[in-house]
C-alpha cells in the first residue's frame, strides 16, 4: 500500500511528478493551476534534483519542454486553457518530432480570457489536435484527485512507449478540490537516454537531430503515415473506459472527468426512481472508446451526454453509435457545474415525460 494523504488536485499532480522521477518542469502561472509550480518550487529540487523553471510565457515553457524532451529527459508542464492555447504551436512540433512529454490542462471556462471556474470547453482542442497539421495528443481525463496522481505515471508510460505528447485534461474543480489519495512510491530518475535523443554526438557516428521539417512532400507524407499508424495502434491497444450498470441498462449517461462523476450520482438517483440507467466514462478521450458505445447502442433507448461545455464529446459519441440509438446532450457553460438533480430532471424531460406524451 502506498502512502495516503489528503491533497488538493494540483498539489497531488505536482507530487506525482516528483515521484514519477520527472527530470524537469517548465511552467508559467495561471489560475486555477498555479499551485503546481508553487508546490514544485518548494519540494522538487531538494528532493530529487528535478529542474524547476518558471518560464516567461507558456510559449517559452512548452519550447523548453521540447528542448529537454529532445534530450531524452522525462519532462512535464501544466497550464490552464488560455495558456494551453499558447502552447499549441509547439505541441504540433512535439507531435511531429515524436518527443515524449506529459502536460496537464486544468481547464477553465472560455472562450477568451473567460473565467477561472471549472469547464470542459477545451475538449475539441485537446482531442482533435489543437495545433496545425494531422496529429493527436494522447488524452487522459482524470475525474478525481487520485487519478491526477495515477495518470501522471501512466502518462509518462504512454508518452515514452509511443514517443508522443500526452495530455491530462482535468478541470478547475479537480485541480482545486481536496481528496484522499494514495501515492505511489518514489521512482528513480532514469539516467540513460534513448538513441534518438540529442545528448551530444556519439563517438564514431554522425550527429543526431530532432526536427519536424520534412520539405519533400513524399517524406512528409511518410512521416504522417507513421503518425497515423501509431494512432491506430493506440486505438487498438490503449483505450481505457469505465462502465457502470451497463448490463441491464436501457439508458446511458455519458461524460468524462468531473462531468462523468456528477453523472454517477445522477445515475444513482435515477436508479432509485426505477430508471435503468448505466454509465460510460471514457478515460482516454483520444483514443476514444468507440467500441464500448457501438456495442451498447443497439440495446439502448437513448444516451444522455453530459458535459461542462456546449456539446463537444457528444459529437464523438454520435459518431461511435452510428445512429443506432438516440443521443441527447445536456451541458452547462461558462464555469457552471451541473447538479445531479438537474441532469436527472433533464433526462426525465427528454426520455420519460417526453416518451409518455
Amino acid at each position, binding site marked *: 500500500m502506498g502512502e495516503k494523504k489528503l491533497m488538493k488536485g494540483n498539489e497531488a499532480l505536482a507530487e506525482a511528478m516528483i515521484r514519477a522521477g520527472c*527530470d*524537469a518542469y*517548465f511552467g508559467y502561472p495561471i489560475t486555477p493551476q498555479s499551485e503546481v509550480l508553487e508546490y514544485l518550487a518548494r519540494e522538487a529540487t531538494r528532493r530529487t534534483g528535478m*529542474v524547476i*523553471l518558471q*518560464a*516567461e*510565457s507558456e*510559449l*517559452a*515553457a512548452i*519550447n*523548453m*519542454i*521540447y*528542448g*529537454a*524532451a*529532445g*534530450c531524452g*529527459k522525462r*519532462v512535464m508542464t501544466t497550464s490552464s486553457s488560455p495558456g494551453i492555447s499558447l502552447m499549441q*504551436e*509547439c505541441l504540433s*512540433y512535439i507531435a511531429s*518530432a515524436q518527443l515524449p512529454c506529459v502536460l496537464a490542462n486544468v481547464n477553465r471556462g472560455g472562450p477568451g480570457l473567460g473565467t477561472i471556474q471549472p469547464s470542459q470547453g477545451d475538449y475539441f482542442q485537446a482531442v482533435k489536435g489543437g495545433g496545425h497539421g494531422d496529429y493527436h495528443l494522447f488524452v487522459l481525463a482524470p475525474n478525481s484527485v487520485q487519478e491526477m496522481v495515477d495518470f501522471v505515471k501512466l502518462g509518462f508510460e504512454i508518452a515514452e512507449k509511443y514517443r508522443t505528447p500526452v495530455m491530462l485534461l482535468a478541470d478547475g474543480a479537480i485541480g482545486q478540490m481536496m481528496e484522499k489519495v494514495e501515492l505511489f512510491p518514489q521512482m528513480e530518475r532514469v539516467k540513460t537516454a534513448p538513441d534518438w535523443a*540529442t*545528448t*551530444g*554526438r*556519439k*563517438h564514431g557516428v*554522425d*550527429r*543526431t*537531430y*530532432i*526536427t*519536424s*521539417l520534412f520539405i519533400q512532400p513524399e517524406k512528409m507524407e511518410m512521416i504522417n503515415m507513421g503518425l497515423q499508424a501509431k494512432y491506430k495502434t493506440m486505438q487498438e491497444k490503449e483505450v481505457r473506459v469505465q462502465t457502470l450498470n451497463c448490463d441491464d441498462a436501457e439508458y446511458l449517461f455519458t461524460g468524462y472527468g468531473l462531468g462523468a462523476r456528477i453523472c454517477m450520482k445522477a445515475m444513482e438517483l435515477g436508479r432509485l426512481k426505477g430508471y435503468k440507467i448505466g454509465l460510460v466514462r471514457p478515460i482516454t478521450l483520444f483514443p476514444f472508446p468507440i467500441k464500448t458505445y457501438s456495442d451498447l447502442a443497439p440495446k439502448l433507448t437513448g444516451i444522455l451526454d453530459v458535459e461542462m461545455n456546449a456539446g463537444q464529446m457528444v459529437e464523438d459519441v454520435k459518431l461511435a453509435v452510428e445512429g443506432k440509438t438516440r443521443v441527447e446532450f445536456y451541458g452547462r457553460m461558462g464555469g457552471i457545474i451541473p447538479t445531479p438533480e438537474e441532469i436527472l430532471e433533464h433526462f426525465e424531460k427528454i426520455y420519460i415525460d417526453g416518451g409518455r406524451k
Partner: protein
Amino acid sequence: MSEQIFQVEDNLCSPENLVYKRPGALLDVDFHYCPGCGHSTTHKLLMEVVEEMGIESDIIGVAPVGCSVFAYHYLNVDVQQAAHGRACAVATGIKRVMPEKLVFTYQGDGDLAAIGVAETIHAANRGENIMVIFINNGIYGMTSGQMAPTTLPGMVSTTSPFGRDVKTQGYPLVIAEVLKLLPGAAYITRQAVNTAAHVRRTKKAIKTAIEYQQKGLGFCMVEVVSNCPSNWKMTPVESNNFVEEQMIPYYPLGDIKVPEVK
C-alpha cells in the same frame, strides 16, 4: 613549361602544404545557401572552432526558422530544430537538463529580433549559460526579402518597397545594445564576415563565447553582421561592400560587453 606548372600545383596539394580545408565537423554536404552568403562562412567558422576545441561530442545546437533552418544538414553535431523564434527557450530546456553540455543557438534577425525577442531577452536575463550566434543581414531571406526588424532606414525590401519608413515601420532594433543592459548577459559582441579580417575576428569571438560558457559565465551572443546578395539584389562583392558602407556604420563592430572576471 606546362609540365613544370603541373608539378608545382601537385606539390601545393600535398598534405604538408595544406593550409585550408573543410572542417571535419562539417558534414560533406553542399550548402543550400546562395553564393556569397555569410551563413556558409559562419557555419564553417563555428565548426572549425568546434573541431579545434575537440568538443564535437560535448555540444548541442538549436537551429531556427529562417535560411539556416537546415543547419543540421551541415553541422555534424547534435542539433534540435526549433519553432520560429523559440531557439533560446529550446536551448534553455536543453541546458537545464544537460548542464554539462555546451549549448548554442544559431538564429537570424527575424527569428531572434522579431518573433523571438521575448525568449532571447529572458534567456539573457536569466543568465542562461548558452551561446547565441545571431546572423543579422537586415532581411528575411528564406521568405524572399521581406523587411526585418534590423532592416536599415530607407532600405528597400518587398514589404518596404519604398524604403523602410521609420515613422510607420519602426527603427532597426539594436538587440546587442539592448542585451548589454542585462546583468545575466556575460559576453555580447558584434562581428562581421564581409572581409578576411572580420572573418578571423568572428572566429575568435565564437571561440571566446564557448570558453566563457565552459567557465559558466552566463549568456553569450556573437552577432554577425552579414549579407544577403539574393534579396538585396546585389552581387556578392557588392553586398560585402554594402555591409561595410551601410550596415557596419549602423551596427558598429566590436565587443559590446565582456565579462568582468575572465
